[in-house]
């Protein structure tokens, strides 16, 4: 039982995508932390082999292995004051292939022979869509993995998948369509179908990370439209990352500042060359006003998608574990987790 409803109760696999450079991995990590409360166990999966998660949590590169990397926030009203656990897994295609062999055929031993033959190369770089099937396969396997005796009956209460960027997300998730042209029957097809059963179900939601700039907004709207065109796929929330701070009201931003009065005010708090400073600050204010206006336009456009929107602040100092916890708290407060 959760203390309150979140927007995504019932979702167990959270897929996080976004245009490159919008902070997709950061948001995925913050979401995993946000979900890991009250003793819940969350698995954060990195699909692209960049080791971005290890860097975010200030850890050495992660092996192909589920290991605990962080503890979620405890809650004051919890009584137990107990946070949950965040586990992380960096998937590489090669490891996923060997895993697949082990899981379904119990033939991991054959892996090195296949490797010598070029089979691993073949499967991971040449075989169409196979890599994606393997990665989504691993994520859905972790989603379904059972553990008797736990409150949910599952090993993990939630999975967060740091997925490929928006431009590739449709192809990445639409595995069964990808494979159906190739394998009409057979083991790969069966595997792809079982993957699709999880991904195209209410258990899975695809969240979009965006910044308030034109191109990311356009790509987000295109990505959402693409997801909606795939039967059974659930579009999740839009996470606006790096929102600039709101320091003044619209009216104040629009009004031309009184330079003389500003210089006086600056003088009074002991600053020097206040005439020049007031002029510089006024210029910076004007630029800020323009940015706020553009950001508002971008936000209005994102609202047309009709999905829940969560906003995360710009953190000028860069992202560390403390910042991740702050972002996680923001996501929780807004109902994302």
């Amino acid at each position: 039982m959760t203390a309150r409803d979140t927007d995504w109760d019932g979702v167990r696999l959270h897929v996080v995508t976004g245009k490159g450079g919008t902070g997709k991995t950061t948001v995925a990590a913050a979401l995993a932390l946000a979900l890991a409360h009250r003793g819940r166990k969350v698995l954060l999966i990195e699909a692209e082999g960049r080791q971005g998660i290890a860097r975010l949590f200030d850890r050495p590169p992660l092996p192909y292995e589920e290991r605990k990397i962080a503890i979620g926030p405890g809650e004051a009203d919890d009584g137990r004051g107990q946070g949950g656990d965040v586990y992380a897994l960096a998937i590489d295609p090669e490891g996923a292939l060997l895993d697949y062999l082990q899981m379904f055929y119990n033939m991991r031993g054959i892996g090195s022979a296949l490797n010598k033959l070029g089979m691993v190369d073949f499967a991971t770089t040449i075989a169409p869509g196979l890599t994606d099937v393997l990665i989504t396969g691993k994520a859905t396997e972790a989603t379904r993995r059972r553990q008797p005796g736990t409150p949910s009956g599952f090993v993990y209460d939630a999975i967060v998948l740091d997925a490929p960027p928006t431009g590739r997300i449709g192809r990445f998730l639409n595995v069964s369509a990808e494979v159906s042209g190739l394998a009409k029957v057979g083991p790969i097809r069966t595997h792809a179908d079982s993957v699709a059963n999880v991904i195209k179900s209410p258990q899975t939601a695809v969240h979009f990370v965006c910044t308030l700039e034109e191109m990311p907004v356009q790509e987000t709207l295109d990505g959402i439209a693409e997801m909606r065109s795939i039967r059974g796929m659930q579009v999740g929330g839009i996470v606006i990352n790096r929102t600039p701070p709101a320091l003044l009201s619209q009216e104040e931003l629009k009004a031309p500042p009184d330079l003389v009065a500003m210089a006086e005010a600056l003088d009074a708090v002991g600053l020097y060359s206040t005439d020049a400073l007031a002029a510089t600050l006024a210029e910076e204010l004007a630029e800020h006003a323009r940015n706020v206006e553009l950001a508002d336009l971008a936000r209005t456009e994102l609202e047309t998608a009709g999905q829940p929107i969560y906003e995360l602040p710009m953190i000028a100092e860069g992202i560390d574990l403390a910042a991740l916890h702050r972002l996680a708290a923001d996501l929780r407060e807004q109902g994302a987790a």
Partner: protein
Amino acid sequence: MTTLGNPRLDTDRIIDDRRTRIIVCCGSGGVGKTTTAAALGLRAAERGRQVCVLTVDPARRLAQSMGLSSLDNTPRLIEGVSSAAGGSLHAMMLDMKRTFDEIVEAHAEPARAAQILANPFYQSLSSSFAGTQEYMAMEKLGQLRRSDEWDLIIVDTPPSRSALDFLDAPERLGRFLDGRLIRLLTSPVKASRPFTRVLNAGFSVMTGALTKLLGAQVLRDAQTFITAFDSMFGGFRERADATYRLLQAPGTSFIVIAVPEPDALREASYFVERLDEERMPLAGLILNRVHGTGGCRLSAARSVAAAEALESTAPATGANGPVVPAAPADDPGHSAKAVSAAALRLHAARTSLSERERRVAGAFTSAHPAVPVLEVPALPEDVHDLAGLRRIGESFAGS
């Protein structure tokens, strides 16, 4: 904007040098590769070069900014480019399936081409496999270069998992084609190789395993495809090798693009080192979206202190820092204090951002002190038209 210790990347010198025939823009996703490639292309064209920009990014807005509703697999002439210096600008967007189909059609006799094009394995391979885009970008680049219709080709690299995938493409293709897997897959069809008994037994175990893994139908399709494709493979690899050598040739310049963020610069660093290893000619780094401090030397700490002093005399703060309610109209002093405090906080945030960017960029430049760097200031808006691209080009030149 403070200058980093590295030499300044002079893009005008590169595009004005008639010996420069190819410029490759590379870097991680979301750093402005495509826009940079287009801006360089426009500037080069208006300085007298016959330019073709090859992009793999299907961003509609960029196509629109060049006056086209969309780009396709054929170079299109861009209108509105000044031809005063005798140059011209073409642009095209890579259609990987179309490019692949064209290669098949050009290199196989019609019956065999039709057989290949209809094969389900080929259809998947040509439209979806991770890596096709890289091969095809290289292929298209080679084609454009060989056609000799343009004296400068500017290409932006595909948004790969790794920015380096396209460099690996020829080698990976070669490794695959020379691999035993191909021989294994084709052997039951050809059935003409003199296997020893041991090898044969080994192979049948492998074929068995593959059948189990892939399914008999997939294996059959793959075999049919590879057999049909076999005759073309040699030419494929030769061309990929030729393009690779072209990239190493003196007429090529690589420009690495990044933004002052740790991830983008880490990728850039890796790229610079890799290009060096591969003996690829690196021209330098373009650092996009750099935030400046506008020449104002007031530090972040002092700004915040002054803002706090002002706020203590003009109260009202909200949960998210100071939120200033609409000031009473009859008290201009109050309003000026509030506005000044907000402006100082803004300035502080800006200064810390700029300082952080400087630190991040410093980590790159101290590791690569000889790499020429060009800083491009952050723009509030995306580019919508040729005029916008032209302004970016001008900012490269520092004017």
